[in-house]
């Protein structure tokens, strides 16, 4: 059955289809819907539902508090050690969950990537956003614990968003490079788990940075872009007498090293993403 009259008429909105604002709108919609879906899915099956958002960190912090301050009595000489540990764990937990979740995002949402045209960045970003909802709740509960442990609120707490933004930026670039690499090479997933474990012990999460002996070891530890984050978190939130990053780092090289690392990760992300993003659907 042919319809000759239809053949000559051009289709109406002009070449390509969606303007920039429409594309931005679609990008944001996709990130939001995918993130909220993932977030809600986590709690959909449980009886207590979203109450676990508060209960889980409460229980985790309770256990950590008991283990580190009552059982092995670690960090007795460090002021407000328990509070420092709890907040550090909140930040590192977000780093671990967000990077892992972003890394697996293309593969986990392969059916979407292969069936509809989605801006590739929307997939890992939605995975990070879903974990961010949990991070936000953990922060609220964590600060409750910190106050309960005797740390008084102070003006420097207002600087916390700087640290959160730094962490989110780091997690985002790492998440993108990991997602692009994992879509191409599954070995990346195998390698990332031990790297995370290494980072946990190499970062000043369970100990203050200045406990690392000065010299080579401290310089190496300073390459880790997480190091200045945990140092400033302690100084700004827990103990104003603790050293700031330049002082803790101990040298100009060590002071700049984590930011150079961060910049190198950004460059690697740019090239990895540029080389992959158009062909992700084919690689899955």
């Amino acid at each position, binding site marked *: 059955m042919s319809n000759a009259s239809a053949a000559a008429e051009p289709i109406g909105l002009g070449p390509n289809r969606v303007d920039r604002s429409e594309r931005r709108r679609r990008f944001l919609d996709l990130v939001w819907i995918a993130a909220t879906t993932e977030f809600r899915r986590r709690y959909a099956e449980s009886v207590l539902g979203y109450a676990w958002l508060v209960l889980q960190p409460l229980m985790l912090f309770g256990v950590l508090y008991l283990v580190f301050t009552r059982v092995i009595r670690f960090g007795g000489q460090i002021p407000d050690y328990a509070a420092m540990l709890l907040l550090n764990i909140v930040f590192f937990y977000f780093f671990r969950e967000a990077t892992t979740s972003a890394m697996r995002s293309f593969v986990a949402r392969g059916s979407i990537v292969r069936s*509809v045209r989605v801006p590739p960045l929307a997939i890992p970003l939605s995975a990070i956003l879903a974990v961010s909802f949990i991070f936000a709740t953990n922060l609220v509960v964590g600060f409750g614990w910190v106050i309960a442990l005797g740390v008084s609120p102070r003006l420097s707490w207002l600087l916390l968003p700087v640290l959160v933004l730094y962490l989110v930026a780091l997690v985002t670039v790492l998440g993108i490079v990991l997602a692009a690499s994992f879509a191409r090479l599954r070995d990346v997933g195998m390698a990332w788990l031990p790297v995370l474990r290494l980072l946990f012990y190499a970062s000043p999460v369970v100990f203050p940075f200045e406990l690392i002996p000065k010299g080579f070891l401290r310089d190496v530890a300073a390459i880790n872009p997480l190091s200045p984050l945990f140092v400033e978190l302690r100084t700004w939130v827990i103990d104003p007498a603790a050293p700031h990053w330049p002082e803790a780092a101990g040298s100009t090289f060590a002071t700049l090293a984590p930011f150079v690392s961060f910049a190198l990760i950004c460059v690697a992300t740019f090239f990895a993403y540029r080389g992959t993003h158009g062909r992700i659907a084919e690689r899955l």
Partner: protein
Amino acid sequence: MPLIRERYQRLEVFTGIDFTVAKGEFFGIVGRNGSGKSTLLKVIAGIYPADAGRVEIHGRLAPVLDLGVGFNPDLPTRDNAVINGVMLGLSSRQARARTDAILDFAELHEFAEMRLKNLSSGMKVRLAFASMLQTDPDVMLIDEVLAVGDKAFQEKCAESMAERRRRGKTVVLVTHAMPAVERLCDRAMLLEDGLIEQIGDPGTVAARYLEVNLEHTELAGESPADEEAEQGSLGFVHIASASLVDGAGQRRATATPEEPLELAATLEVTRPIEGAALQIEICNDRGGRMFMPPPMPILDAEGSRLRAGDQPTLRLEIENRFLPGSYTARLSILRTSRHRGELPASRPVEVPFVVSGSTRRGAGSMALRHALVVENLAPRTGAGVG
């Protein structure tokens, strides 16, 4: 260190593909499995990049390559309607605003708060299809997802697609269902090995598709009488070939309306059979049986046998009362057992064929002669039927 080397096979899916689909057209893409139909849709949709060339689309496009993209079984039906709508191109606000319409169309309002995993598979595809229709793009790419649900829902979907046509929306449809191509499409294109084999009238393209399929079935030596069958009770006769033929005995895949259908089959008898008979059944594209006469004895004399090594050719002529569309003739050989009656003696062979022509001549599958006589009606005044 033993490393697993990543192996790539470079596959050139298309070369020289160039075609245009006009606004308001319903365009079908057909082809055998692996001919590149779905890949072509993904390239048009921007999911796969083309190595060279250009795809230009005017208007908002929604690819429907899979039903229920983004569905999450743990979330309620209503939320899944929103998720699917956004995946297909609606904004969150639009998707939320259209949720009731989606649930109404899918007839799932009473299940709106139920988790998706508790719905039947039929309900899920209804929801997915209803979401797809609500996206209302200018150009819709559909991959084999046109007929879902029960008959009533299918009719509703067909009406909705017809309404899209009336509003000048464009649809590019990939399918193996030739009746759908003939019924719905304004034009169609046959892909074969990454090239355009034919483009134009959907009836002609559908017929060519069946011919190509037939050619490849023969080339591949696909014979229904496989070893397993040969060893079992079906292994008395192998139907070596079966096809629709013209008056000169040449194979063909199409017949014009009312032109008698002539089927030819060559048998290879592997074990002696008593009372061998040919059984034929003709079905329409929905599997509905259109015609099945009693088994026809191959040898007239009672007690005669087909002997091992016999290779008889059977020719069967059937009156053609079929409406344009796709049909399948299923041939098999039976044997008569004194104790157990008629038993199959060969594996059946299917012969697909198309009755060409416009499907606008009526619905159904049969063109039976009919006449309307009106009586006891007073004459009308004014304009009447001339």
